[in-house]
């Protein structure tokens, strides 16, 4: 392996990404709403030196089809607020990045900005944020303040069609991220002065109204929360089509894409690059890292992962379907694939464990040592912030002199 080592993120969700994961042999379905369950998973991920974990979330109950609520009782339902869960995990960990998902359609931008800033303070610089639009019209009735487009069965057959229907929500979401970044910048790093002689706790010339007046809303600022340790916590998004690629080009530091092979990877990254060009983003100044998502079933013994997956498919009475490529095999086989795909220009991968904790442990104790042997993954953390792990610079406040 030549070139840069890979970055690895783990996507944590419920009992794992297979709909029947909660029925797997080592699943702990009664513990999904306990802090200890999540603390154990993140400790394992940190033991594996991964860059960060993402935590899924939504302002509605999970459903089999992502755009329509259902009354199924045979899959995991229910969730905890991901930002609060990440905050709980912060003092229990020391290095790993914590990236909660939040809704940017129904939640106030100001609350989102101070929540993520607080997570960055609580984790001493390990916060990320995955802003997500609300693609389910039913969720709007939880708030009663607005309506959002109802996707049809025709729409959801094609990710480009989905994105087109939801385009205004993406545009609004990009404004939410812009507001959050400005609020994070609204306190310069050295605003707190504690100058007893003049009685001033802060230098108010270093606190700034952001005066954001966008297409969808306005926010005055400044933030109530001092500038986060990372300056701007990391923004991560998942994208399957041109509109979300454009969202990522505007808003994200890391974009997750869902190719199905190396050639497809190259094609998608080309589309991402085009979106970056359309938005005029200078990636030398603001790099955009590209990760591919994979849903993984891993066992050292050849054939074992396939047997596990097949048993879960039987229990679910359906073959697993996913937006991401599904990998079923050995850690060594997965290492081959990652190194192959990465030649198309990927910076890293986000792995979605098929079941928890099994496929997480297989990553940390199987895949990671395998990649380390090949010189493709860190053997120790060499930074304490999430930006540090990803070699991304700490941005200056846009309001600072010379910043």
């Amino acid at each position, binding site marked *: 392996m030549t070139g840069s080592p890979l970055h690895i993120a783990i996507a944590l969700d419920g009992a794992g990404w297979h709909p029947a994961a*909660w*029925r797997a042999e080592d*699943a702990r*379905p*009664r513990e*999904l709403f*306990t*802090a200890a369950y999540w603390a154990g998973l993140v400790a394992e991920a940190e033991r594996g030196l991964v860059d960060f974990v993402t935590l899924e979330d939504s*302002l509605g*109950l999970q459903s089999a089809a992502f755009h329509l*609520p259902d*009354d199924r*009782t*045979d899959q*995991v*339902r*229910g*969730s*905890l*607020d991901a930002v*609060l*869960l990440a*905050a*709980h995990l*912060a*003092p229990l960990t020391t290095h790993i990045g914590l990236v909660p998902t939040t809704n940017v359609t*129904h939640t*106030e931008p*100001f*609350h989102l900005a*101070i*929540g993520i*800033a607080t*997570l960055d*303070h*609580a984790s001493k610089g390990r916060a990320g944020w995955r802003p997500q639009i609300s693609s389910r019209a*039913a*969720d709007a*009735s*939880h*708030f009663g303040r607005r309506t959002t487009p109802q996707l049809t069965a025709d729409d959801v057959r094609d990710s480009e069609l989905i994105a087109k229907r939801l385009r205004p929500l993406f545009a609004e979401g990009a404004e939410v991220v812009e507001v959050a970044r400005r609020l994070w910048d609204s*306190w310069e790093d050295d605003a707190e002065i*504690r100058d*007893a002689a003049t*009685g*001033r*706790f*802060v230098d*108010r010339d270093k*606190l700034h109204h952001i005066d954001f007046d966008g297409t*969808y*809303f*306005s*926010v*005055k*600022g*400044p933030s*109530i*929360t*001092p500038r986060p340790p990372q300056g701007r916590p990391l923004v991560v998004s998942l994208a399957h089509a041109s509109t979300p690629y454009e969202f990522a080009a505007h808003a994200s530091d890391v974009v997750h894409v869902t190719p199905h092979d190396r050639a497809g990877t190259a094609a998608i990254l080309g589309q991402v690059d085009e979106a970056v060009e359309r938005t005029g983003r200078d990636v030398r100044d603001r790099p955009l890292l590209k990760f591919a998502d994979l849903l993984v079933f891993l066992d050292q013994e050849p054939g074992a992962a396939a047997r596990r997956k097949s048993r879960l498919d039987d229990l679910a009475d359906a073959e697993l379907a996913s937006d991401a490529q599904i990998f079923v095999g050995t850690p060594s086989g997965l290492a081959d694939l990652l190194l192959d795909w990465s030649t198309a220009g990927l910076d890293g991968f986000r792995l979605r464990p098929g079941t928890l904790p099994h496929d997480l442990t297989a990553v940390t104790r199987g895949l990671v040592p395998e990649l380390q042997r090949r010189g493709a993954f860190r053997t120790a953390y060499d930074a304490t912030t999430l930006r540090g792990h990803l070699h991304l610079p700490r941005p200056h406040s846009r309001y600072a002199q010379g910043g």
Partner: protein
Amino acid sequence: MPTTRRKQVHLAAQLPGIHNVTAWSDPRSESQIAIGSFIRLAQTAERGKFDFFFLAEGLRLREHKGRIYDLDVVGRPENLTVLSALSAVTTHLGLAATVNATFNEPYEVARRLATLDHLSGGRSAWNVVTSYDAFTGENFRRGGFLDEADRYTRAAEFLGLTRELWDSWASGDLPADAERDEFVRPGAGHFAHRGRHFDVSGRFTTPRGPQGHPVIIQSGESDAGREFAASDADVIFSKYNQLDVARAFYRDVKRRLATYGRTPDMLKIMPTASVVVADTDEEAAAYAAEITRALVSPQTAIAHLEAVWGRDLSGYDPDGPLPDVEPAADAHFLKGHSVFRKGRGETARQWRKLAEERNLSMRELVIEVNGGQTFIGSPRTVADAIDHFVQTDGADGFVLVPHLTPGGLDDLVDRVVPLLQEKGVFRKEYTGKLLRDHLGVRAPEYTARPVGDEKETR
């Protein structure tokens, strides 16, 4: 002698950090935002077997004469986020967040509080506050839309709806039974609510937390606020920490509970108070005077007078007499600070009278009206005073605001709490896991899910 158990004291600790209650210029004063400060204060409170740790809220930085007010501590975290972090490094301490009901929606507030209740194993509390402040509203896409008259009707409906959401999952709704292939019970989380302020329906995401309903706190002494607390809260905060007015407040609030079919012990009354402890009463008095003075710098004195006078007074000497000019009619110099919101003319008259009677300079006057510390003295003196206040029905306990972050609770916990324990009026160990256990307040009776195709029949 009868062995009736003495009335028990409840204690909460509030992180200081707004208004001039924090002596930030003291060399021992550390960061107001670093997580280490929060952890140190919370763990100290837990070592002292406190009922809960409390955070206030302010969603816009205050402004003075059109610029950010820079004389007090500025900068605070998002409350529920930092309390969730603290839930990982504490085991029994209650965790209470102020969350504004005006700039949030019930679905999210219910969800976040239920999440904290899960993460903390049943230690969450919500101080329900409302705002009709267009100034703060400028930070929110919905703006500051609420009429003052609607504050409590909306707050009451907001809280009622939040309770419906907490009840939308029954405690048996998560069988997670692999044999029967049933993770969740049918209908879990269904809700529908139509009222004057909210028209919402759907599925709630978060299963019932350990407490069922987090502890509900109301702060505010107005008639409507008292009624709201008597009808639907577990704790009421107040500013009445002088015994005579506190007892009147206590009697008035407790008597209101019967109207709602509640008994007096179902609502705990906890005034805000501060404590200064030293080896002797004399040393404590001297230290208290020093703190009080540190909290009102010359610049702070001028700013407070400007807020009331509505005029620029920067040319006046803070150690000289009050300004010889009259207050301006309609200027609003200090925004986002509720104390100076109304009645400035009357306040100015009172202040001038007080200053003339007592021959006070501007700074001395502000120190005087700012008020001193509540309990001052040796550990014995302070413990006796706290006990007396509670036994004579001035309060059920106190929210204590230390003047130093993060070491401001140390003396209290190390020197006063043991004396309260010795008197048999404060717990030596936690006897329950839930904040409701510490406070002795039950959750409301569970009401069945309002809608749903699968009602409990057994």
